[in-house]
C-alpha cells in the first residue's frame, strides 16, 4: 500500500519534471479557453438569452471553460501512454516491481497535476476581463483539489481507451468523440434545465457536470447545496475508472 502510494508520487514527480523542461503545451492549450472567455463570453452575455442565476454570463462559463480544458488535457493524456507503448517505456515499467494499479493511478494523477497548471493559467486572464471569484482561499484550494481528482478520472478514461486503441490516429479520433459530447452535454456553457429532456437525462451521467457544478459553486456562485453529491459522484467516477483502467492496463503491452 505504502509502496503503491510512493510509486504514484514518483509518477507525479516525473510529470512535474517534464513540465519544468517544457511548458509550451500548457501555453498553446490555453489559447482556446481564453477565446471562450474573452470573446464568446462577452458576446453571449450581451444577448442575455441564458439564465445564469444572477451572475454575469462570462463568470458563469469561466469554471466550465476551465474544466473543459483540463478534461481535454486529461483525455489526450492517453496519447502519451500510446507513445510510451510504441516505444519500450511501458514494457520496462511493467517489468518493475511497481504494481499495475499504482502505475495507472499514478499516471492519472500526474495528468491531474498538469490540469492544475492548465486551469491556473486561465485565472489571471479571467480576472483581467472582470470575472469575480469568491475571495476565499479555502474555496480555491478545494476547487483545485476537485479539478485535480476529476482530471485524474478523465485521464484514467484515456488510459482505458489507450489500451484498446493502439495507434495514435485511432486514439485521436476516439478522444474527440468523447470530449465534445461530454462538453456540450454538460452544464459548462448553459444550465442543464435548458437542455432537451433526453440530454438532461444524459447529463445526469455526465461526470463533467458534477465537476463544473462543484467548481462553479466554489469559485463563482457560492452555491454549495449540491457540493456533497458532486464530490460523491466524482469519487465514484474516479474509483470506477481507476479499477477499469488498472484491469485493462496489462493488455496494453500484449
Amino acid at each position, binding site marked *: 500500500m505504502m509502496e503503491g502510494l510512493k510509486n504514484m508520487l*514518483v509518477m507525479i*514527480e516525473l510529470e512535474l*519534471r517534464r513540465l519544468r523542461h517544457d511548458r509550451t503545451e500548457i501555453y498553446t492549450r490555453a489559447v482556446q479557453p481564453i477565446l471562450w472567455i474573452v470573446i464568446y463570453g462577452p458576446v453571449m452575455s450581451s444577448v442575455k438569452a441564458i439564465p445564469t442565476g444572477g451572475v454575469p454570463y462570462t463568470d458563469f462559463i469561466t469554471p466550465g471553460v476551465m474544466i473543459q480544458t483540463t478534461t481535454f488535457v486529461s483525455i489526450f493524456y492517453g496519447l502519451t501512454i500510446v507513445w510510451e507503448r510504441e516505444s519500450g517505456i511501458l*514494457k*520496462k515499467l511493467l517489468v518493475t*516491481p511497481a504494481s499495475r494499479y499504482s502505475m495507472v493511478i499514478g499516471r492519472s494523477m500526474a495528468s491531474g497535476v498538469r490540469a492544475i497548471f492548465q486551469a491556473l493559467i486561465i485565472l489571471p486572464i479571467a480576472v483581467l476581463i472582470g470575472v469575480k471569484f469568491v475571495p476565499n482561499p479555502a474555496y480555491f484550494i478545494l476547487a483545485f483539489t476537485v479539478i485535480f481528482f476529476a482530471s485524474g478520472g478523465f485521464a484514467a478514461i484515456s488510459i482505458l481507451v489507450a489500451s484498446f486503441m493502439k495507434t495514435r490516429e485511432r486514439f485521436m479520433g476516439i478522444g474527440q468523440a468523447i470530449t465534445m459530447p461530454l462538453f456540450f452535454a454538460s452544464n459548462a456553457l448553459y444550465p442543464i434545465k435548458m437542455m432537451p429532456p433526453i440530454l438532461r437525462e444524459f447529463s445526469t451521467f455526465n461526470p463533467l457536470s458534477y465537476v463544473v457544478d462543484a467548481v462553479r459553486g466554489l469559485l463563482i456562485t457560492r452555491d454549495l447545496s449540491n457540493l456533497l453529491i458532486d464530490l460523491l459522484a466524482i469519487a465514484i467516477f474516479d474509483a470506477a475508472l481507476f479499477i477499469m483502467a488498472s484491469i485493462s492496463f496489462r493488455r496494453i503491452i*500484449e
Partner: protein
Amino acid sequence: MDFAVKVKNLVKVYDGKVRALDGVDLNVNQGEAFALLGPNGAGKTTLIRILTTQLKPTAGEAYVFGLNVVHDGGKVRKLVSYVPQEMSVWTDISGYENLLIYAKIFGVPKLEREKVIDEALENMGLTHVKNDLVKTYSGGMIRRLEIACAMLIKPKIMFLDEPTIGLDPAARKVVWERLNVFKKEYGVTIFFNTHYMDEADLYADEIAIINQGKIVTRGKSEELKHSLGGEIIVFTLEKTAHKPDLIQNIRKLNFVKGVFEDGNLSVLVGDAESTLPDLMNFLKSEGASVGKVSITKPTLDDVFLKYVGTRLEEKGRVSDVRHMRDMIRKG
C-alpha cells in the same frame, strides 16, 4: 541450486495462428552470460517477454530462479531488470532524471540513490551529459542510458533484448566490458538476444540458437564450432553453368560432412589438405569452374549456417518481420 532460467516445452501462439515459440526447452546457469541467437522472427523477443512476465505462454512452463513466471510474476519482477529492444527512456527529461525516477520505482534507498546513479552513469560513460535532455542524445548514448537503468539495482538476472543495437563497434566493446565487470562483481546472470555473431562469440558463456520457435542447438561457442568438426573449404564458383544437383552430389561424397551455399560454396570436411584435390576434380567433372578457394576453421557463423540454413543477415524477409511485429502488437 535453481537454474537462473528454466523453460519447459514453452509454446506461444499469437492470435491462434502465429507460432512464435514451438516447444522451447532451456536451462541457464546462474552467473552466466547467455546468448540467444536467431534470425528475425525466430522467437527471441517473445521468449524474453514471457520470462519477464509481460506475456503469458500458451503452453509449457517457465521459471526464473525457481519462480514460475505466470504465478509468481510479482516476485520475479523484483529479481530482474530488463532492456527492451525499443527505446525505453523518457526523452523530455534528462538522463539523470530518468535514472532517478527508476531508482525510486525500484525502491533504491534514499541515501544510496546518488551513489548508485553516479556509478551507473560512470559505467556507461554518460557522466558528462547527465543533465542534458535525452532528446539531445545520440542513439548510442540512449542505448547506454537504458543499460545504465538496468544496472541501477543489482538484479539477479538482466534480460537484454538486442542490447547493443545502434552502437558502433567501439561502444559495443565498452558496453560489454562494463557488463562483464558487473556480472563478475555481483554474480548477475545476463540473458541476451543478439544478432551479432561476434558478440555472442566473445561475451557469452553459453549460446543457444533458436529458429522458427525451436532451440536448434546450444553449447559453449567453442563446443559449437568444434561440433562441426574439421575444416571448411570455401569455393568461389565462376558464373558458368554447372549441374543443378551439384550440391546434392557433393553431399553424397563420403568425406564430405556438410555443404552450405550462400553465394559461395562451403564444404565441411575432416581434413582439407587431403580432400581438396578430390573435391576440385569432382567440381570440374560436374561442370563447375572454381575461381577462388580458401580454407577456414568453422566459425560461429558456420554453426549458424548449419542449423538455421542461411546466414543470419539474410534470413527474414521484411514482410515476415512486419507481420510478426503486428501480431505481437495486437496481442
